């Protein structure tokens, strides 16, 4: 079977700096994959490239949600989302003046279609659609486990719940591949553990594949089927958690990073 996401030889240069350098990554149906690497390795940039926020300097991005393969290069972010790639943001980007439910309702935008006239006349179809949006949004909140905050403003949520809300909002777009940018950042060990369960549940029950960027190695090792390691925009290793743990290049990249940080 073809990979559902196939990135071939992608490069993203900012002036002289190659944040991504001839990167190849493939994600398969039903997989939980991780993208790891030191700070500044280009992980977030990779997400931005495939979701259309940046236009990669060169290379190809293909998706294959069903039988047919499609090229994603140059598509606008909203089109990419419509095609079934949803993401969360490393620096939380919730709609701060909206409630938790409304945030998720926005996620339903791409799968609904009421326009200006529908809004003004509020005909049966629009009403039905609004009901559908509310029901769907609420059921997602239940699945993600933050339904108790339904009417709270998004900004008033505790940090861990905000991260979960980002996931809920992304799930509302009905994705086949969910891209999570450091979902456990800032969470305490208990929250991280329940995030672990949530991600597996999403994969098993919601039928989405997952690519996550994460620094929490325990989480990465326990969750991932496959790990891709990047450093300075280049892929330095790929494999199962066991293979990665014992890979000398990875150890070097990480130790180097840690000694700099300290």
């Amino acid at each position, binding site marked *: 079977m073809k990979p559902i996401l196939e990135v071939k030889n992608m490069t993203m240069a900012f002036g002289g700096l190659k944040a991504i350098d001839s990167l190849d990554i493939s994600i398969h149906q039903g997989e939980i994959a991780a993208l790891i690497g030191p700070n500044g390795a280009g992980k977030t940039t990779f997400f931005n490239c495939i*979701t*259309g*926020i940046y236009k990669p300097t060169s290379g190809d991005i293909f998706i294959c949600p069903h039988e047919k393969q499609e090229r994603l290069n140059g598509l*606008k*972010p*909203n089109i990419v*989302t*419509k095609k079934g790639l*949803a*993401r969360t*943001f490393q620096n939380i*980007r*919730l*709609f*701060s*003046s*909206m*409630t938790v*439910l*409304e945030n998720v*309702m*926005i*996620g339903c*935008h*791409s*799968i*609904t279609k*009421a*326009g*200006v006239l*529908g*809004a*003004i006349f*509020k005909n049966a179809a*629009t009403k039905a*659609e*609004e009901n559908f*949006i*509310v*029901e769907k949004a*609420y059921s997602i909140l239940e699945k993600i486990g933050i339904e108790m905050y*339904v*009417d709270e*403003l998004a900004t008033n949520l505790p940090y861990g719940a905000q991260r979960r809300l980002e996931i809920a*909002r*992304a799930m*509302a*777009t009905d994705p086949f591949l969910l891209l999570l940018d450091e979902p456990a950042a800032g969470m305490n060990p208990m929250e991280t553990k329940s995030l672990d369960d949530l991600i597996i549940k999403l994969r098993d029950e919601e039928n989405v594949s997952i690519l996550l960027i994460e620094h929490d190695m325990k989480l990465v090792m326990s969750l991932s089927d496959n790990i891709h390691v990047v450093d300075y925009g280049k892929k330095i290793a790929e494999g199962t958690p066991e293979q990665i743990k014992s890979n000398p290049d990875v150890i070097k990249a990480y130790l180097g990073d840690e000694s700099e940080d300290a």
Partner: protein
Amino acid sequence: MTATGEIKKSVLVSLWFMFLTFPIMVIRVNTVQDVVEWRWLNMAYIGIGTFFISMLWRYMIRRKEREGKKEKTDNLSFAQKIILDKKIFIPLVALTGLFIIVFPHMFSMYQTNIMISALIYVMLGLGLNIVIGLAGLLDLGYVAFFAVGAYSYALLNLHYGLVFWLALPLGGFLALIFGVILGYPVLRLRGDYLAIVTLGFGEIIRLVLENWNEFSFGPSGIPNIPKPPLFGVDLSLSGSIIYLYYIIVGLVIFTIFVINRLENSRIGRAWIALKDDEIACQAMGIDKARTKLRAFGLGAMWAGMAGVIFAAKTTFINPASFTIWESVIILCTVVLGGMGSITGVISGALLLILLPEYLRAFSEFRMIIFGAVLVLMMVFRPGGIINNVRKTYKFQKT
């Protein structure tokens, strides 16, 4: 800070003001007798005046800071509490409605005319509120669409005898087209850049109207625009003014209805989300350009309809009615009233248009009072008269 510190500060401020105003307030050249008059008394007035004003100013700033700290718990404003309380709200609406209905019969024609102007601005304010308050696009050339509407009616009536009731939707529609055409290239700009470009567009439209004589009759304008007839009957002058009054009241109510519906719809949510965070919004599958264009176009459409009413009210239009000053006033009604809030924009518009009318007695100081009110508002109530806390969707389990 200590009391002496406060006094010292105010003394410095008043000295500075005395120095600044010295040339205009103290020295006067008497051209008849060819001598210089020294009006020292004026200087004393200014000194004492600024001293107290600066004390008051700092006292109020400090009070506001203290309020800001404790306000966090209760984020509904007084006006919103009234709106939410059905027992007060419904009689209030009924009373206002009654007042609006009897208004033209109780007051003079002059007052009714002023009220029509004010209601035109209410409509303009509500339209601009879609663009600025909901979608967060700073449009400083809004008056251009007002002009498009007014000229649509004037010119189509002149050349083809188009009647008011056809001109109203058509003027709105033409303004909408203009909005989309002008909006398309500029909507990728943000904030101040968008403001400057729209400002330019507004001026371009006015300059075209002023200089393209064959098309718009230039600065001399277009006279004899008919007021709307009632079932084909030409009304007396006062009758037609009253009729126009009811038309604009009806349109304002229609506008409120539409905006209310839009606000609580998929489109309205997208606007608010877009204002909050553009990138996240796109990542949620919202087409940024299209969503912005919708706001821009709908806003323009309302300005166009208001323009048609304006042309019918004044029966004469020329480019002088569509200057940048008009855009600024409309913007002020939105900002002063409270961005995003319908009641806010209405009170803002009524205040800004009616106040100067009744301040005619002090016409020399009108602009100063106007400016002072705006500055004070920005300092003490930056959220506007009605500080809008958006009505969020409340989930009900079914």
